[in-house]
C-alpha cells in the first residue's frame, strides 16, 4: 500500500506511541497467564529433574521415594515409571546422546538406565549399577565424552565403562551437594559443599582450582551455557550469586528477591536469564545482569520448590516441588503459544519495542511491574525489608560514631564473600 510518510500528516507521534505502549503493557498484564499444566503422578516430593538432550518433549524426574518417572510434555502424561532406588533419588542426568540416563540414590549406588522403555516382557533393569562406599548426592554427565562425575564425600570422575572412579578430587572434608560440568569448556567442573564453599575443578589435571567461601552454604550452581566463565550459585542466604570464575573475589552480581533459601537454579539456553527455585514456594526469573527478578511464579498449591529446569527451546520452565507435582510454566508469561501469523508477529515485536521504549514512564512502569504475591511471601518481604533497613541503620550509626575511616564501606557484592582459598 503506498503511503505518505510526511510527518505533517502524522502528527503527535509520541503521544500516539505512548498510548499504544500503555495499551500494550496493559494487555501484556491481562494476558499474563504463565501456568500451563501440572504433571502429577509422583508419590513423594520431586527431588531432581533432568532434561532430555535431544527431545524437547521428554523430561525425567526423580522423587524422594526412589521413583523415577519419564514424562511426555506434549501429552502431559507419564510414559514410564521406574523404581530406581531405595530412599531418595539424589540426582539424575541424561547422557549427552540421549540414549541413557544416570541416577544416584541414597542406597549408595549409581545406576545407568536406558532411555527407551523395555520391550514387552523385558525386565526393567539398569544397564549398569555401581555400588559405592558412600552416599552420592549428585551427578552430572560430561557434555561430550563418556565421562560422568558424582559428588558426595568427594567429587569422583568416572569412566562409563569402569566400576571405579578415574579420579577422586577432594579439598576439605565436608559433603558436596552438587557438581556441574561446564557446558562450553567441558573439562571444568564446579561443586558446592556444605562447608559453605564453592570449588572449581579441572578434569584434565585432576586437580581443584580455587575455592571461594561464602557466608552461607550454596545449594546448587549452574554454568551459563553461552558464557564459559560465568556461573550462578543458589545460596541459603536467599540470594543468588553470579561469579566470573576468573575473578572469584567478588561476584559479578548479587541477585536478591527470594525470601527463603534458594534451592535450585537453571540457566535459560540463551544465557540471558536464569530461573531459581526457592524454599519460599516461588519460582523467580532473573535477568543475568540485573539484581532483581523480572518475574515471580507461584500458585496456591505449590509448596517448597526443590528443583527447576528451563527447557532447551527457551520457551518453558519446569519446576518440581515438595507436594509431588511438576509444574509447567511459560518462560514469558504473556507469550502467545502456537504459530503466529506474520502480522501478529510484527504487532508483537512492535509492542515489545514500545514497551521497551516507554518503560521508564511512571504509568507504564507501574503496570508492567505489578505482580501478585501470596500473603506469606509479601509479609516476609516486608519483614526482611525492615530487618535490612535496621541493619543498615545500625551500621550507619556505628560509622557515625567511630573514628573516620575505621569502618570502611563494604559493597554488597563483597559482603557475602568470606574468603578465596587458592
Amino acid at each position, binding site marked *: 500500500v503506498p503511503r505518505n510518510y510526511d510527518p505533517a500528516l502524522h502528527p503527535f507521534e509520541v503521544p500516539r506511541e*505512548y498510548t499504544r505502549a*500503555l495499551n500494550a503493557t496493559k494487555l501484556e498484564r*491481562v494476558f499474563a497467564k504463565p501456568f500451563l499444566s501440572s504433571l502429577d503422578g509422583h508419590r513423594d516430593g520431586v527431588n531432581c529433574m533432568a532434561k532430555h538432550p535431544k527431545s524437547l518433549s521428554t523430561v525425567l524426574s526423580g522423587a524422594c521415594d526412589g521413583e523415577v518417572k519419564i514424562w511426555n510434555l506434549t501429552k502431559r502424561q507419564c510414559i514410564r515409571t521406574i523404581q530406581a532406588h531405595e530412599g531418595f533419588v539424589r540426582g539424575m542426568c541424561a547422557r549427552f546422546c540421549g540414549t541413557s540416563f544416570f541416577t544416584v540414590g541414597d542406597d549408595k549406588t549409581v545406576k545407568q538406565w536406558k532411555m527407551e522403555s523395555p520391550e514387552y516382557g523385558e525386565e526393567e533393569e539398569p544397564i549398569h549399577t555401581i555400588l559405592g562406599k558412600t552416599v552420592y548426592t549428585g551427578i552430572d554427565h560430561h557434555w561430550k565424552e563418556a565421562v560422568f562425575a558424582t559428588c558426595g564425600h568427594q567429587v569422583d570422575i568416572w569412566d562409563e565403562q569402569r566400576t571405579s572412579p578415574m579420579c577422586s578430587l577432594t579439598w576439605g572434608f565436608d559433603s558436596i551437594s552438587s557438581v556441574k560440568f561446564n557446558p562450553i569448556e567441558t573439562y571444568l567442573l564446579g561443586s558446592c559443599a556444605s562447608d559453605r564453599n564453592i570449588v572449581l575443578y579441572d578434569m584434565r589435571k585432576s586437580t581443584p582450582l580455587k575455592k571461594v567461601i561464602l557466608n552461607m552454604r550454596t545449594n546448587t550452581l549452574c554454568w551459563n551455557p553461552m558464557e564459559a566463565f560465568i556461573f550462578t550459585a543458589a545460596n541459603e542466604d536467599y540470594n543468588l550469586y553470579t561469579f566470573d*570464575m*576468573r575473578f572469584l573475589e567478588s561476584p559479578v552480581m548479587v541477585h536478591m528477591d527470594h525470601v527463603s533459601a534458594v534451592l535450585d537454579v537453571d540457566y535459560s539456553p540463551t544465557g540471558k536469564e536464569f530461573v531459581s527455585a526457592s524454599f519460599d514456594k516461588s519460582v523467580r526469573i532473573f535477568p543475568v545482569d540485573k539484581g532483581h527478578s523480572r518475574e515471580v511464579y507461584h500458585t496456591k498449591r505449590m509448596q517448597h520448590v526443590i528443583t527447576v529446569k528451563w527447557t532447551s527451546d*527457551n520457551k518453558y520452565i519446569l519446576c518440581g516441588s515438595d507436594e509431588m507435582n511438576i509444574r509447567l510454566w511459560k518462560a514469558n508469561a504473556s507469550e502467545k503459544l502456537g504459530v503466529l501469523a506474520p502480522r501478529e508477529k510484527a504487532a508483537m515485536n512492535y509492542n515489545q519495542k514500545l514497551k521497551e521504549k516507554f518503560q521508564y514512564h511512571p504509568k507504564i512502569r507501574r503496570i508492567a511491574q505489578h505482580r501478585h504475591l501470596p500473603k506469606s511471601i509479601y509479609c516476609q518481604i516486608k519483614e526482611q525489608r525492615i530487618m535490612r533497613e535496621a541493619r543498615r541503620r545500625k551500621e550507619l550509626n556505628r560509622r557515625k560514631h567511630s573514628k573516620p575511616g575505621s569502618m570502611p564501606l563494604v559493597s554488597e557484592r563483597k559482603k557475602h564473600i568470606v574468603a578465596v582459598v587458592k
Partner: protein
Amino acid sequence: MAEEWLGVEAAASGGESEEEEGQEDGERRHRQLLEAVSSLSGRRRQKLAERTEASVQVSEFNVSCEGAGEKLVLSELLQPIRPKSALSSVKKELTRVKQKKAVELPLSKEEAKRVVREAAYVRTSKDVGKWQQVVLQNRRAEQLVFPLKQEIATVVPLEQVASGWKARTPLEQEIFGLLYKTQKPITDPLLTPEETASLQAMSLEEARRRRAELQKARAMQSYYEAKARREKKIKSKKYHRVLKKSKRRKALKEFELLHKSDPEAALAKLEELEQLRMQERMSLKHQNKGKWARSRAIMAKYDLEARKAMQEQLAKNKELMQKVRVELPKEEPGDVPEEDLASVTVPTLPAGASETNPWMLGKPSSPAEEPEVQEGLGDVAVPGAAECKEEMEKEEEEMSEEEALLQDFAQKRHARQQRAGSPEGQGEGLAAPGSVGPVCCRGGQTKGGPGGCFLPSLTQLSCSLPPCSHGRCFSPVTSCVGADETEAVPELPGDGPIQPVCAEEQASTGIEQPSQAQEEILLSEQLGRVRTMEDVEALASGEPVEEQEKPAAARAEKQVQQQQEESRASGGRRARKPPAKKKIISLQAMLSGKTQEVQFSSLPVVVEEEDGGIDQRGVITEAFAGDDVVADFRREKRKAEQAAKPQPVNLVLPGWGEWAGTGLKPSAKKIKRFLLKPPPAPPRKDQHLPHVILSERRNIHAAAHQVSELPFPFERHQQFEQSIRTPVGATWNTQRAFQKLTAPRVVTRAGHIIQPISAEDVPDMGTAAGSGAKPALEIAPQRQEQPFRRPRKRAR
C-alpha cells in the same frame, strides 16, 4: 747421630713439605758441608756399603738408602712419584663438597598441592579467557538468533525415499502394481518410456518443418496487423459507413441463417446483443455529449441535415435507454421513519463521500485512533449532506456538472444499482436525486431510492453536525496528552496550541526527587491480583504506594555524608540542584510545535470545500454566531497575565511609631518603606504570540505521565528525549525500516533445541582472543543503527 737425625729431619721435611723438593742442590751442598764438618772432628764414621750400580740381587731386607745417608721411612715409599697433581683434584673436590649446602626438606603435602592448584588455575582461567571477546560480542549484539547452529533441512530426493520403502498393505501393493504396470519411473529422469520414446521420435527434419510453420504464422500475423492499422487510418467517412453497413448486413444475414438452422444459438446471439445494448447504455455514448454531437448541436440551427442527424442520435439514445420497468420493492420509499433512515445512511456515507471528507483525504487515519475515527464518522456526513442540499437548490443551472458526475459514477456502479437508481432515465429533473443515490448508498444497506425522502433528514443532520465537526478539528490536539486524557483536557476555542505550554513549563519547572539507587527493583509485588483490563487501568491511575527502601537508603546515606562533611555537602547540594532541575523530562517537550501542523493539515480542507461550493466556515460562523471566541480568548489571556504578575508584599504595621485608629492611615513614608515591591517578572514567553497562553504552572495531570528522573543508562536528558522522540511505528516508518526498528533482541525458534555455544559456532575463536573484529553470530541483515543505542547495563 746428629747428622742422621738431621738427614731424617731433612728427608721428613722434604717428604712433608713438598714445596722444598725442588731444592736438591741445596741439600747436597748441605750434606757436603756436614761431611766436611764431621771429618774435622777426626773420628771416622763407619761407612755403610753403598750400592752404586744396578745389581740383579737386591734384597728386600736391606734396602739401603746409603746415598742419602738417611734412614728409610715407610712413608717415603708410599709417597707417590708425582703427588702434586693427584692431590689437587682431590682437594678441589673437597672444596666443592665443602661449598655445597644441605638439601632442604621436601614441601609439605598441602603446600605442594597448593602450588599445583595455583598453576592449574592460572592456566584454566587463561583458557577460559579466550571466550571473552565472544561473550562481549554476544552481550552487545543487536540481535541474537538461536540456535546458533542453523541446521539446514536437507531434502532427500524422492527416489531415495521411495527405494527405501516397501509396500506392505494390500492397498499399497495394489497401487504399486498399477504404477509398475504403467512403468512409472521412480528414478531419474522422471519420464515414462512412452515419453522418452516420443521424445526420441521427433526427428531433426520434423523440428525444422515445425519451425518453418511457426515462422510463417508469425509473418501472416504481422501482415494482418499492418492491414488492419491501415484500414483504421482511412479517414473517408463514406468508406467506413459502407464498411459498417456491409458488416451489419452480413451480420443480419448470418443471424437469419442461424435462426433457421440453429434457434438456440440464435437466442444466445440475441442475448449477446442485449448484453451489448446494456453496455452501450452504461457507457452513455449517445447522449449528445461527444464532440460530434456538440458540433451537430451548433450546426442544427442552420443545417437541416445536422438536425436530422441529431434527432436520429437522440432517438437512438432513447431506444438504448429504454428498459423494461422493474417494480421497486414496496418498503423502500417514504414509509421508513426518518431517524431510522438517517441512522442507517450516515454511517454508510464515508466510503462514498471520501472525496468530500478532508480527514480521509489528508491522511489515512491510523488504526490506533479508534475514538477519533468514530468522531470522523460522525462528521463525515456533513459535507455530503450539504452537497445534497446545494444540489437541490441549484439543480437547474448545474446540469452539465451533474451529468459529468453521473458519468463518473456510472462507470463504477453496477447494473443492479442502476436498475434501482432512476427508473425514468432521461428525466433531467430526476437526475439529481439519482446522483445522490450513489453517493449515499455505497455501503449498500439502503438501495439508494429516489433520495428525496431522506434529503430532509440529511439537511437536518447538516444543521446539527457542525459543532461535532468542530470538535473533531481539535481532537488531535486534545489527544496529545496521551492515554486516556482526552476528556480531561480543557476545551480551547482558539487554535489550540496548548501543547507548547506544557512543554515549556515542563522544561523550566520541576520537582527534585531524591536520586534513586542505581539498582532498580524490577517488580512491585503486591497482594492484589490484576485480572482484567479495568484492574490494569485502576493500577495505572493509582498512586505508587509501596514504600521503597532503596531511595530511603540513599537518602540516609546522604544524611550521614552531610553530617560528616557539612560544608561540602551543602555546597554540593546547591551545586546539584540546577542539573536536577534540568533533568526533568517531559513527554510534551518532544511535541512542541505540532499544533501548527494540525492547522496546516486542516487548511486545504476548507479550500477544497469552497471549491466544491460549500461554505463550511459559513456554517460554523452561523453555529457560533452568539459567542465571540477571539475576544474571550483575549480576556482570558489578560487575566492570566495579571495572575502571573508578582504581587507586592505589604508589611506596613499601622501604629508603629505613629498613631493609628479609624480614619487614620499610615504615613506615605512608612508605606513607601514597608511595601516591598518584588523585582519585575521576566518577560512572558507568550508576549509576542497573540494566540497563545503559555502557563508556567506545573500541570499535574500531565506530570503523572512524565518521567521525573533520568533513567539509568542515559547520561543526559537530551539523549533520553531523543530516544523517545524517534517513532518506531509503521505509521511513521517505511515497512523495511519498521521491521528493522522492531527487530527483537533475541530470536528463538519454537521446537528447536538450543545447544550451548561451542568453538565450532565461533569460527574465529582461535584468533578472537586478541582481535575479535568479526561478529560471532548471525545478525539480522542490515540492522539500522539507531540514533541512540542503550548501552548494555552490565556491571563487570
